[in-house]
């Protein structure tokens, strides 16, 4: 052995050496040099450490090889470009006080510093040459494209006067706020509640309500929270990864699970990005997904892999037997036998015949699911649940699998979302409004998950009501909804919509027809809190005007967000406080009190007090965490942008009900427990089902399981509702169990020359209605060809990709380019839904609208045509990139050609269309659209005929089951059916 070990020497002064290295590194990095290279750059997260967020130095890449330093303040906020609410870090230039870029916020527990393309593109929105900077008032006819700048005072006074008059005159139902991108949970609802108005309208029934319905009937909570990261099997029924909802937070956790060996199964008729990463990609006939789920369920039951202990304890099987088998045995073995018998018909052969997936593949998938045990995470959101008549049974049958396996709120299982969401109680909670808005919650849809928002034009045409003042909030109903030209008809008719106020950061197809266009901020220009289920934990994220936070760090006092936003761009919080004060300036209407300071009664509530109160009183652990750092709770959130409240929530349904809540208990024969004890006040006001009290007014508090009173689920039975007594009682007994409803686009319902059009998918690089204001995203993807399988292309006589095709629906047609691909099932075509942005000729004088086509819109009574006059092209602006637009094709706005298809139970618009695809005719041009809105109204009537209205079917003379979730639930007395003919 040669001389190996160094002579034993005194231990060097490691501390001093460490300091020397630290100093050397700091000096090198200050010079813009890299001190460590390669693997030595390993850090737990490659993000600027928070202690340097006040003064972060980077080199300007464009100045290379000169070393030009940028000094930035790093200010967290929350992305506003999808529902994930990922954390962003704004790099605010210390010299110019402008945002240079957005990157991920490492302190955000959901997104963990990562973002998709939409997050950094917030910068495009902030600097968009098309953005609206000042309040604008219509100067000519509606839609004429003439605008004049107005002051905020003028806008507020005018609108407040209308609202005040409507409220005083008892016309509360003529006020409506229609929400696009959700902001803070419950904020708009509380504003409306403070006005006494049931005017909340959401886009959910063209989005996710079909998915929600299936989960709600099982758990009393309308969203799932899959613990993907710990799953053995991940089962997704969605177009792309949950269709962009939680795309980034879930994708990163699915990636982790895959690294640990998890199997990913994707059911998507179209080859989505997610499908390309799956172990199994199943491309079923659209609408057959529930049949596949039931065949898997049958396999789990038949092969003895059901978690019978879980089923015994947590399903409402006793209620099912009592209601549906009253003369039979009432024991669990009988239920098991019944279950086997009920699903006996859902063989692999049946599912194969319905779906077109071969039996062997279905068997392989079923075996993998059956072997997942309690580590089975699943999700179904838009896609099949949003596409098909009865689509809500897709999510109901997906959760059926989790419920059979006992994979409910287990590690790697699927949680009810309320376990993983925290909505902090706000400073003021106004009472429930005492009116019922029938334009949103019509009697025909007593079980609708959300507002029948997409039927509004037809209801207005039918004379069911009118709107005095209609707000849209970051929403574009003409473009987003099916049958957008019917929307245009009512928005341009002052008899139907008296005043249309568009709260929007950017121009859109609807805002052009508004009376007032009021500029609202983007992600870095407004306040909101958010909390979403993205893993088994609860977090609260904070969106804030980053320049406000930056200037406050520099010692300035900011009292109004407009002081820091570009132009006169505002935020809704301050806007609604101010508007509410102007509706009720002296407080006599009882409105002002909900927008007043607590610290200084009689003064306006400020956003600092609003959030300061919330973070101090309603977010457990936050005050303590802030104190450790010498910050106030609000200061902490302004500093870090997010706070994790809990982690590892587990099976909350199994928690024992505390003794103090047990008072004068009443326990039913099926184990439902009611208590006379008061409900403890919760700091978390996130929405869940509200089971009704017993006949003596005791509240539902839990269920008896094995002799112990446990919390259970917020359903009528307190258990997972395999059998929905609600569906049975409200006229749909045939659908009370998880089942299979044949879609309106089932092959049996198609003519020989018809195919199914899938329109529910979108690309993860696109924002629903605001991509045209984001140049980077637009460059990535800007068109939406029609996916056609080669076999169909031959049938349609379409020879090559790029050929024009005419796609004919029940009410019109659109002309688009073909994309011939094997990524779609034969007999099905697909077209992405978020393309085809346009502006009407004449509106191009308002702003450059550089990434929207300019179209001629022609109307002849009920017949409309849309033809592109100019496609997009390079143009001059303050942004040199607008000269670099290399594309001209912006796709086609296919939604205009789709009639409304309301599901009679969930109320979801069933997006899939039966269409005919042919070669384009001579004279057809890309983007052409033709629609007959009278036909659209006729299709509306046909679908309405299949509803079962509360007037006929309500079991208790109410409009709707009171326990079901509902945004802005009105006061109990409003649930009573109205007098008169029903």
């Amino acid at each position, binding site marked *: *052995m040669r001389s190996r070990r160094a002579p034993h020497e005194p231990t060097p002064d*490691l501390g001093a050496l460490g300091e020397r290295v630290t100093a050397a590194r700091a000096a090198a990095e200050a010079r813009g040099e890299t001190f460590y290279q390669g*693997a030595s750059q390993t850090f737990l997260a490659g993000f600027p450490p928070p202690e340097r967020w006040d003064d972060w130095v980077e080199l300007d890449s464009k100045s290379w090889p000169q070393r030009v330093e940028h000094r930035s303040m790093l200010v967290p906020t929350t992305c506003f470009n999808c529902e994930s609410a990922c954390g962003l870090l704004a790099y605010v230039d210390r010299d110019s006080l402008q945002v240079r870029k957005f990157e991920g916020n490492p302190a955000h527990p959901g997104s963990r510093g990562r973002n998709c393309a939409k997050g950094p593109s917030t910068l495009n929105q902030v600097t968009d040459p098309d953005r609206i900077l000042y309040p604008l008032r219509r100067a000519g006819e509606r839609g004429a494209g003439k605008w004049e700048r107005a002051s905020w005072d003028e806008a507020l006074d005018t609108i407040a006067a209308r609202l005040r008059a409507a409220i005083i005159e008892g016309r509360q139902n003529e006020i409506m706020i229609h929400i696009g991108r959700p902001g803070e949970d419950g904020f708009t609802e509380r504003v409306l509640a403070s006005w006494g108005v049931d005017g909340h309208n959401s886009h959910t029934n063209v989005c996710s309500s079909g998915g929600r319905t299936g989960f709600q009937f099982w758990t009393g909570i309308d969203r799932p929270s899959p613990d993907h990261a710990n799953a053995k099997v991940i089962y997704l029924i969605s177009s792309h990864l949950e269709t962009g909802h939680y795309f980034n937070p879930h994708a990163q956790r699915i990636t982790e699970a895959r*690294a640990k060996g998890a199997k990913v199964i994707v059911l998507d008729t179209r080859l989505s990005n997610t499908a390309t990463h799956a172990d199994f990609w199943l491309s079923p006939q659209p609408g057959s997904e529930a049949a596949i789920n039931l065949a898997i369920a049958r396999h789990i039951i038949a092969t003895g892999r059901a978690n019978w202990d879980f089923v015994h304890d947590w399903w409402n099987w006793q209620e099912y037997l009592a209601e549906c088998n009253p003369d039979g045995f009432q024991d669990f073995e009988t239920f098991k036998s019944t279950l086997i018998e009920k699903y006996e018909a859902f063989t692999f052969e049946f599912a194969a015949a319905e779906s077109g997936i071969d039996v062997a593949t279905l068997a392989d998938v079923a075996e993998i699911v059956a072997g997942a045990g309690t580590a089975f995470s699943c999700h179904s959101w838009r896609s099949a649940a949003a596409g098909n008549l009865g689509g809500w049974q897709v999510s109901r049958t997906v959760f059926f699998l989790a419920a059979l396996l006992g994979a409910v709120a287990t590690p790697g299982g699927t949680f009810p979302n309320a376990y993983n969401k925290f909505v902090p109680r706000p400073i003021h909670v106004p009472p429930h409004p005492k009116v019922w808005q029938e334009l949103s919650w019509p009697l025909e849809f007593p079980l609708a998950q959300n507002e029948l928002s997409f039927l509004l034009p037809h209801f207005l045409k039918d004379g069911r009501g009118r709107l005095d003042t209609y707000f849209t909030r970051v929403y574009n109903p003409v473009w987003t909804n099916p049958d957008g030209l019917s929307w245009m008809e009512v928005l341009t008719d002052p008899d139907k919509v008296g005043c249309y106020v568009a709260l929007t950061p950017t121009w859109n197809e609807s805002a052009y027809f508004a009376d007032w266009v009021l500029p609202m901020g983007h992600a870095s220009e407004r306040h909101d809190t958010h909390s979403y289920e993205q893993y088994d934990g609860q977090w609260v994220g904070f969106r804030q005007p980053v320049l406000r936070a930056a200037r406050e760090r520099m010692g300035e006092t900011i009292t109004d967000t407009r002081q820091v936003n570009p132009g006169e761009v505002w935020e809704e919080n301050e806007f609604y406080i101010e508007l509410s004060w102007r509706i009720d300036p002296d407080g006599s209407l009882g409105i002002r009190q909900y927008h007043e300071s607590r610290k200084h009664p009689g003064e306006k509530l400020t956003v600092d007090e609003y959030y300061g109160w919330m973070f101090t009183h309603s977010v457990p652990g936050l005050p303590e965490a802030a104190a450790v750092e010498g910050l106030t709770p609000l200061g902490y959130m302004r500093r870090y942008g997010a706070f994790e409240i809990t982690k590892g929530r587990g099976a909350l349904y199994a928690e024992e009900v505390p003794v103090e809540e047990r008072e004068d208990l009443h326990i039913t024969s099926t184990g439902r427990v009611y208590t006379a004890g008061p409900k403890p006040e919760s700091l978390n006001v996130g929405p869940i089902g509200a089971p009704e009290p017993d006949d003596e007014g005791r509240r539902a508090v839990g269920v008896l399981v094995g002799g112990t009173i446990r919390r259970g689920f917020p359903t009528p039975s307190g258990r997972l509702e395999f059998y929905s007594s609600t569906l049975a009682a409200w006229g749909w007994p045939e659908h009370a169990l998880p089942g299979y409803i044949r879609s309106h686009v089932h092959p049996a319902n198609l003519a020989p020359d018809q195919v199914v059009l899938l329109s529910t998918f979108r690309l993860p690089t696109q924002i629903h209605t605001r991509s045209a204001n984001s140049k980077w995203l637009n460059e990535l993807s800007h068109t939406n060809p029609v996916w056609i399988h080669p076999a169909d292309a031959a049938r349609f006589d379409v020879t090559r990709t790029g050929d024009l095709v005419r796609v004919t629906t029940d009410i019109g047609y659109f002309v688009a380019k073909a994309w011939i691909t094997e990524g779609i099932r034969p007999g099905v075509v697909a077209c992405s839904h978020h393309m085809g942005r346009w502006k009407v000729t004449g509106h191009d004088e308002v702003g450059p609208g550089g990434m929207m086509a300019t179209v001629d819109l022609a109307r002849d009574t009920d017949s409309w045509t849309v033809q592109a006059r100019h496609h997009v092209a390079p143009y001059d602006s303050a942004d040199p990139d607008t000269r670099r637009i290399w594309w001209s094709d912006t796709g086609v706005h296919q939604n205009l050609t789709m009639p409304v298809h309301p599901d009679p139970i969930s109320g979801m618009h069933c997006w899939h269309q039966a269409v005919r695809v042919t070669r384009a005719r001579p004279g057809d041009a890309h983007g052409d659209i033709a629609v007959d809105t009278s036909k659209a109204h006729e299709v509306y009537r046909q679908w309405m005929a299949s509803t079962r209205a509360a007037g006929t079917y309500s079991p208790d003379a109410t409009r709707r089951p009171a326990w079901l979730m509902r945004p802005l639930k009105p006061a109990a007395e409003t649930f009573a059916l109205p007098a008169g003919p029903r």
Partner: protein
Amino acid sequence: MTEPALADTLPGEEQAVGSTAPPAELLRALGALSVVPPPASDPISAALGLAAMTAADHTRLFVLDLPPYASIYLGRDGNLGGEAADRVAGMWRALGLDPPADPDHLATLLALYAELGVAAVTCRTAAARARLVHARSVLRAEHLVSWLDPYLTAAPSYPGAEGWARLCQAAMGHEPRRHADQPLPAALRDAPRCIQPTDNLDQLLDSLVTPIRIGFVLTHRDLQHAGNQIGLGVRRGERRYTLRAMLDQDPAATLGWLAGEARQWSTAYRRHPLDGATSRWWSARASSAAIILDTIATQAGPMPRTRGTRGPAVPTGSKHPGMTDTSVASPEPPMFTSAPPAIS
């Protein structure tokens, strides 16, 4: 809110990350020197007060002779990657992190070790701190100290590496040591058996280039040195090939030299233990190897040179009595039939 003392939350942990821990930047810098060649690493060397290595010396040490990957020293075959690297990657995943490309490289390990120390100091809750301190302790025991004993025993003899190795040893040795009753690192606990007298030639050769099987490291330079010492030709090639050629030429002398080498390593570990139980394990393994190599050398006896550069070629398949060439024999008879000495 008063946070619980870390000692309360970490039974068995003598000391949390605190003032006695080596500074994170020192650990990062030491790791960086093992991966960044001069001159890019010169500023780091200067900051550490070390003389800069030449690029050739750096390559010889860290690329050719002693690549600083845990898997080479802990793997059951002495190869890069495999289960030993997977174990480190698993630790990254357990921490909720994506493993980097070379998770078991010394630079990566020291950087992670440094980061865990920083995170443990800056995290917000006692529970998080306890988890991080524990993770750091596990990383040190399982993935650093577990193989740095042989590595830092071998490295100082390379030109320019002595100061670096000394600082590494000081930094790692400065940390709280494990309790005597704490289990050995998993890689050592599940280590493959030591060489056996019953091993055939291929098994012996495999073991001799596998540090965990013999308790010490044989480098190209060592073999060159051995050839010079015992007067054998050193054939150029990978170490296994070179060793085979030496054994062909003079098995007793070669085996005797290897036994002596093993004894010296065993003693060296005891002289400067990096961590009690772990160092003892390496020392015992080298000692066992020495005994077995002595035994094999004795039974082999002096032998004529049947292969190699200095002897006449023998026909393929010919065997020296007692040695089996697995290329022609199957099933494999033992190299020697006498019982091996007991290994305590």
